[in-house]
């Protein structure tokens, strides 16, 4: 069992958890994730490692309510225990000195980009962080990210803060204004990562994204997470989750992520009903 040491609201539908998992905390690297199973009947879901403290033995995750499991997780309290946490999984991000690095985060992906912002900065890069969300409430961890960024830009879909529009358009604007980037790293919803890839490709800027296919074990044993990169099938949990954005078949990923929509809706409805009954 893994105890929730601390819980914090990042946005109305995004919560941050610190979980006691000392073995994972010792090993966690930017770009890696954990597989979490809340309870005996739970499914295994992947969540990115946002932070880790080997001293305290804790790991940090940020969870957006997307369906039953994430909703249930977000209703858990400090002191509650999670049945299983396994990790750190996936290949860590390739942190090196590239020069000028743009770190682009969309939605809960902002939390996922945070450890990379930190790491790229520590590796001596000039880091430009570009964050996007629907509304200004969604611009989570802005101050934390600012601390490690040489420049910070934000975009909101509704224009409530910063650039009015999608985050890839903000990136496009910055590139067109003459900002040079040696590397772009983007984490967020699939359409956003696809758009970022489309933005940087004509400029020949190396771009890395972190894919989020449906996973079961997270250790390379089932192939649920298969994605196509450069025409080849890869297992995102062991070969990724980060890949060269210009090689990815994003449309396939979007289709594969809809494999269980009907079942997911059913599960969420049943869960909401049971919550309503308890109230």
């Amino acid at each position, binding site marked *: 069992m893994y105890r929730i040491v601390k819980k914090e609201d990042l946005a109305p539908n995004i919560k941050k958890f610190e979980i006691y998992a000392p073995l994972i905390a010792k090993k966690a690297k930017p770009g890696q994730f954990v597989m979490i199973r809340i309870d005996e009947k739970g499914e295994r879901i992947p969540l990115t490692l946002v932070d880790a403290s080997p001293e305290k033995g804790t790991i940090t995750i940020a969870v957006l309510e997307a369906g*039953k499991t994430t909703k249930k997780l977000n209703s858990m309290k400090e002191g509650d225990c999670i*049945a299983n946490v396994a990790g750190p999984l996936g290949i860590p991000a390739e942190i090196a000195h590239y020069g000028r690095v743009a770190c682009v985060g969309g939605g809960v992906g902002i939390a996922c980009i945070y450890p990379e912002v930190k790491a790229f900065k520590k590796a001596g890069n000039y880091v430009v962080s570009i964050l996007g969300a629907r509304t200004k409430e969604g611009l989570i961890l802005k101050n934390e990210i600012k601390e490690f960024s040489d420049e910070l830009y934000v975009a909101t879909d509704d224009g409530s803060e910063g650039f009015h529009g999608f985050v890839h358009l903000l990136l496009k604007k910055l590139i067109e204004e003459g900002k040079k980037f040696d590397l772009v790293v983007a984490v967020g919803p699939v359409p956003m990562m696809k758009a970022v890839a489309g933005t940087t490709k004509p400029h020949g800027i190396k771009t890395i994204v972190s894919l989020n296919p449906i996973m079961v074990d997270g250790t390379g044993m089932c*192939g649920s997470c298969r994605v196509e990169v450069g025409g080849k099938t890869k297992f995102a949990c062991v070969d990724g989750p980060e890949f060269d954005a210009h090689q990815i078949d994003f449309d396939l990923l979007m289709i594969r992520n809809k494999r269980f929509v009907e079942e997911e809706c059913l599960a969420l409805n049943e869960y909401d009903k049971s919550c309503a009954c308890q109230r």
Partner: protein
Amino acid sequence: MAKIREKKVPMPEQPPEERIKNFKEVPLGYTPEMAMEEASRCLQCKPRKGKEFPPCVEGCPVNVDIPGFIKAIKEGRFDDAIRIIKDKNSLPAITGRVCPYENQCEGACTLGKKNEPVGIGRLERFAADYERTRGLIIPEKPTPNGKKVAIIGSGPAGLTAAADLAKKGYDVTVFEALHEAGGVLVYGIPEFRLPKEIVKAEVEYIRSLGVKIMTDVVVGKTVTLEELLKEYDAIFIGTGAGLPNFMNIPGENLNGIYSANEFLTRLNLMRAYDFPNYDTPIKVGERVAVIGGGNVAMDCARWARRLGKKVYIVYRRTEAEMPARKEEIERAKEEGVEFLLLTAPTRYIGNEKGWVKQMECIKFELGEPDASGRRRPVPIKGSEFIMDIDTVVVAIGQSPNPLVPQTTPRLKTTKWGTIEVDEELRTSLEKVWAGGDIVRGDSTVILAMGDGRKASLSIDKYLSGNDKTWRTVTQ
């Protein structure tokens, strides 16, 4: 002496039309009376000339004293029977269900030359179930010897090594990547062939011997083998062959196409058959094609029948070449699985939403025998045809789990990705042994257990003796 029955005492089982409507075990097990009657068929053979054991015992990969335990059952001494079995086999309730007896003990049975062999598997299962329903007998704990052994992987190989070493006084910790111990026994073999309660009970028994089982530890990620080496006196790797193979034909990533491992893991380990009571979903359409002819393919096909679907086994050779056990093939047929033989898919065709809707297949004929002695399937030009299908399960085999070798550069592997070992299962790395599917590729529960036992003997010899020379590494 009364004439011996020609056939085994029949085992009560759920009829096909009944069992495809539930997920419960198919054979129901012997009553004590049935077991004693079946046991009385045994001829109590002695070893043949030049052999150490009677034929059935020679046929058993772990040399259980079969005539001994059968005699005990015949005389109603059921506790003795289980004690005799457990002397060699720590997981009899499991092997009593899933062993390919026909190729092993029962295949060698003298009675089997003219009649049906003694139902050794059924009797083993009876003895194990008898013990379990009355509470497992826990042997006395030996005095700890102060030496620590790490076991990587909790499949039959790892669990057997763990149990054997714990019984000798070692301080044993098992590291398992998944959230439940048992390996293929929990994620692969279906509930209706091996109820998970039984695996749980066996795992509990092993815990009661003092073995610590740490789930959620992915060796190579959470800790590395090299780190474990600093803390433990010996390590046994039993990480299995869990990497699913695909055919790499067009359309294989369409929605509705699963690897056998994904299909079985969702259903067995994650209990998707009980969705939404359990959270993990599975989606199975109306017409299911299972590609392959092994036990794994039969398990997938039988699962799909229980979900109420039209199911085809698609296999490129004939039934005679199928690697699956005869019993499993028969059960699949009884349950209404259709066999499309001498056939294999060449590509999958999707609908506008990205779901598989059709499968193009090609027909084969059998040509000359290949290296395995089986006749080689040769595609027939122009025989392509298209069939409507909305779910596919690719069950064409697994490869060795690469995680531990990949993160342990000093560990030698073969060109097939299996870990290289010597006759005592010692790897190229001092203090590290390996066994089961990670060494053998695809094999069986009992052979994996046999490896666990063999390694435990070698580990004990190494750690308790004075001779600390490691194997002379070849190549």
